[in-house]
């Protein structure tokens, strides 16, 4: 990653949940850290999220999921990224994720998992690292 181009991040809320406090706080922290952030808004299907990432030429997709729907949703997004030959787009997830699901998410290719209590600085640093 060179300095001429800002890291581009699509922050998305998939599924039916409307609790967007975390997504918005993280979106703002990433923007304040100098990244280009596109927030999709609520209730985006995996198809819509991947389309947004393609259109925005995103380096990273950041999902906020609190409802327990993370496994089927990440699985679908990873499949769509492969199908659209966008495997270079990194996927990170934050939210309420049971510890037992983390290995499975990693196996799917999820590049970062952020749990409750994660500091904004850690999130910024890790997003930078996976985008590099």
């Amino acid at each position, binding site marked *: 990653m060179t300095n001429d181009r800002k890291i581009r991040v699509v922050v998305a809320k998939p599924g*039916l949940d409307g*609790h967007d406090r975390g997504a*918005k*706080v993280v979106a703002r922290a990433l923007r304040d850290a100098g990244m280009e952030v596109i927030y999709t808004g*609520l209730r985006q*299907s995996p198809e819509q999220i991947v389309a947004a990432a393609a259109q925005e030429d995103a380096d990273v997709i950041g999902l906020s999921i609190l409802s*327990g729907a993370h496994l*089927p949703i990440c699985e679908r997004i990873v499949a769509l990224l492969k199908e659209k030959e966008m495997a270079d787009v990194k996927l990170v997830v934050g939210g309420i994720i049971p510890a037992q699901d983390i290995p499975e998410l990693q196996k799917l290719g999820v590049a970062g998992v952020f749990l409750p*209590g994660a500091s904004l600085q850690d999130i910024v640093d890790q997003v930078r690292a996976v985008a590099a």
Partner: protein
Amino acid sequence: MSKALEEKAAPPRTRPFTTISGREIRPLYRPEDVQGLDYARDLGDPGQYPYTRGVHPTMYRGKVWTMRQFAGFGSAEQTNQRFKYLLANGGHGLSVAFDLPTLMGRDPDHPLSLGEVGKCGVAVTSLADMETLFDGIPLGEVSTSMTINSPAAMLVAFYILVGEKQGVPQAQLQGTVQADILKEFIAQKEYIFPPRPSMRLIVDMIQYCTDHMPKWNSISISGYHIREAGSTAAQELAFTLRDGVEYVQWCVDAGMDVDSFAPRLSFFFNSHSDFFEEIAKFRAARRIWARTMKERFGAKNPRSMMLRFHTQTAGVSLTAQQPYNNVARTALQALAAVLGGTQSLHTNSLDEALALPTEEAVTIALRTQQIVAEETGVINAADPLGGSWFLEKLTNEIEADALEYFRKIDAMGGMVAAVEKGFPQREIQEASFQFQKAVERKDKVIVGVNDYVMEEKPMPILYIDETTAREQTARVEALRATRDQERVRKALAELQQVARGTGNLMYPILEASRAYATIGEMCDALREVWGEYEEAPVF
């Protein structure tokens, strides 16, 4: 003693002395801080206008608060078992958590329901699931709170019909439906239709409950979610009560007499970690509501002026780190709610930053309330902190902040207009970001998260897999294959017809529910008429 637990020498404090909402607190409060306070005018005894000190003369000596634990997960059958467990262990009333497809008016086989069925609550797709949910629970004897908003009218219809099957007339049913759509637009974002038709649906339901269900609280005007979304205590108070004003205004505008429905309005607040600020908030809430109902709406029945409320401890304060510490947090928050005079209480379970709670964790949460009620002695005297210079000053300050928001929102043309402008949404977003920055700077310490951190092992949690989704989809397919399709089609057509006109929507919703139309079908019928609301994605 392990190294991690060794006592640290206290460093000189450099952090500001502020509440969790960022309110400055002085080192000492004295009589002159509350010089203008008039006992009869501003406080009154418990049970006396303006009810600052409580709505009942004897408060918890007469009856302790209702211990009401919010529960719901997986299938209707699984949640039915949890309900029976809670009732058998001293719980007083039921409180239903629905899953996201139910809350959003989607059937389990809709594409957006992927991964969501039975996860955050129980899956209820039609009257058939509601029958299972309350199987063996006599609706004439329990009171039930249902946390549902956009499709509230449908769930009230389901409940009425289950009662009917049990031989309990609707006039006997006791409970509450949340039905507070304004705070969905403001904070929790589980809206379906645009604000104005959403308000109509609520007003129709309130009208129906006023006419037919004298023991039913037709709405629970909620600050809980506003606070969870990151508001300050004063914003929680202001937006909740101003939402209340908006509902009252809409009902009055629809031709209802204020004293016919206002006694059945109830409220729902958060009890967060800043002990005195929370108690002050509850007391200020009662005073503002009493005066608003009397002076703004000309209410005459004292019950219209009494703010009765449910409280839940702050879910957002729970930490995934060192989760057993959450028992202490919850106990202190519960104590604040009781000292603030709550009518009912839900205590969160220690594992809720990780997952839905296990039965063991729920039991500790319920026992926490029982300890407050039975062991601490705080129930002996009403409003035991009333008259404290600090608390009365804080009550006055929070009240003043809330009334300032009232003025701003009135100037915008009311809460629906303010919501359409995104005003409360932006205020909350800003407050939540500022709080997070304060945590990052360690101006606010969260034990186990940004200080007092230690290595720990994962704890066992309740895990809900995709089984419920498959079973629920199969159940709804079977239902669609066996019910009277013609009756469903007619009922949904009638629902759309009424939605296009001005009749009360509860009647066609009851008929469609009786025909076993699903929640997704009923909401889709209304989506076709009213459209769906989309918020501008700003951050």
